[in-house]
Each structure stands twice: as structure tokens, then as C-alpha cells.
């Protein structure tokens, strides 16, 4: 089950510069673990203490996964997951 994951500039050092990589998983949580096995270190940039990091936005197709099921969001073959660091500050 291949899912395309779109990687932001700041995390491309984990993917040898690739803008998009394939990964697998029935849920977002599984997908991120699978990504970690292919691109070690990336999980820690996305997840903190079992939750998505507050300043990382993850989208399933055109929806923010926070409005779906967070890390438990189910995925299907052919889905696209997009990671974008939130643009924020004080």
C-alpha cells in the first residue's frame, strides 16, 4: 500500500533531498513509523510524546489531520500525505 509523503524543505536532509517519498501504513501513526525505518530521525521531527508536534501541520489529501483523527487517521492506497511546518512566531 503506497502512500506519497510530501516532505518540506527543512526535513529533506532526512530524505536525501527528495521532495516526496513513498511509505506504507494503515494509519498515519504506522506511516510515520514506516517513514522512520526508511529515513531515520524523521519521526522525532513529527511526533513528540505520542502526539503530532504542535507546530507541524500534516495533511491527508486536502484535510488537516487534526480535524480527522490525528495519528490514528486511517490511510488508503493512493493517498497523499503532506507535511508542512507551521509558520508561526511571536
Amino acid at each position, binding site marked *: 500500500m503506497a502512500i506519497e509523503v510530501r516532505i518540506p524543505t*527543512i526535513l529533506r536532509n532526512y530524505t536525501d533531498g527528495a521532495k516526496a517519498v513513498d511509505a506504507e501504513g494503515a494509519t498515519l501513526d504506522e506511516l510515520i513509523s514506516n517513514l522512520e525505518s526508511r529515513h531515520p530521525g524523521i519521526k522525532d521531527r513529527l511526533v513528540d510524546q505520542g502526539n503530532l508536534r504542535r507546530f507541524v501541520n500534516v495533511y491527508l489529501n486536502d484535510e488537516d489531520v487534526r480535524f480527522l483523527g490525528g495519528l490514528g487517521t486511517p490511510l488508503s492506497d493512493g493517498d497523499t500525505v503532506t507535511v508542512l*511546518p*507551521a*509558520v508561526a*512566531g511571536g
Partner: protein
Amino acid sequence: MLSISQELADRIVAHARADHPDEACGIIAGRGGVPERFIPMENAERSPTFYRFDSMEQFRVWKEMDERDEEPVVIYHSHTATEAYPSRTDVSYASEPDAHYVLVSTKDDTEVEFRSYRILEGVITEEEVRFIP
């Protein structure tokens, strides 16, 4: 160094003035490091001390830039009570290594501070700004 047209710089300042006392934010998209397309963003926090792009608006804008082969050349926001220098939170959330981070301060009613920085791995480097007439 950031080279930016006076017109785009004026639009940033106008946005900052309009949203004062809340912080205003947005980007200028472009290609090859040249800022061209002004995109004001909603500050989802509507706060005088914090800003955050609305996540869905950011998704749409980033997708559109991707389709047009653009990048966020400038990421701007305003400080409404302090100087135009990156705060600790600005540094910790800076996530576009290739962007010019522009800060404007609207704390003074008449003078506007307009400054630009690179923020890379926690290090702030101020750069010269050249306004092109």
C-alpha cells in the same frame, strides 16, 4: 541581502498598519529568490503577541506555489509593541531555511521599522534591505 520593490514593501507595511494592534503576517512568493507575488495571510491567533498561519490557508497557498514553481521568498510579520527584531519564538519556529524573514514594527504611529533576517538553525543573521523604486 534582500532586494524588494518599494511597492511590495509598502504593501507589507499597509497590512501591518491595518491589523495593528494585532500582528499581521504573510508571504511574498517568487522564483529564484526574487519576491514577486504578495500574499497576505490570516493570523489565526489574532493576537498582539503571536502569529500563526491558518493551517488550511497555508496548505492552499503552499500547494499553489508548488504548482507555479514558486517558493516563499519572504515571510513577514509585524511586531506591534516591540522592535522589528526576531523574538525567541520567531527563532524557534523558523522553518523555511531559504526565506527572508521580514519584520516590521508598528509600535510608532509614524515611523515604520522594516528589517530582514535569515534564521537558520537558531541563528539570526540580519541582512541589508534594498528597496527598488
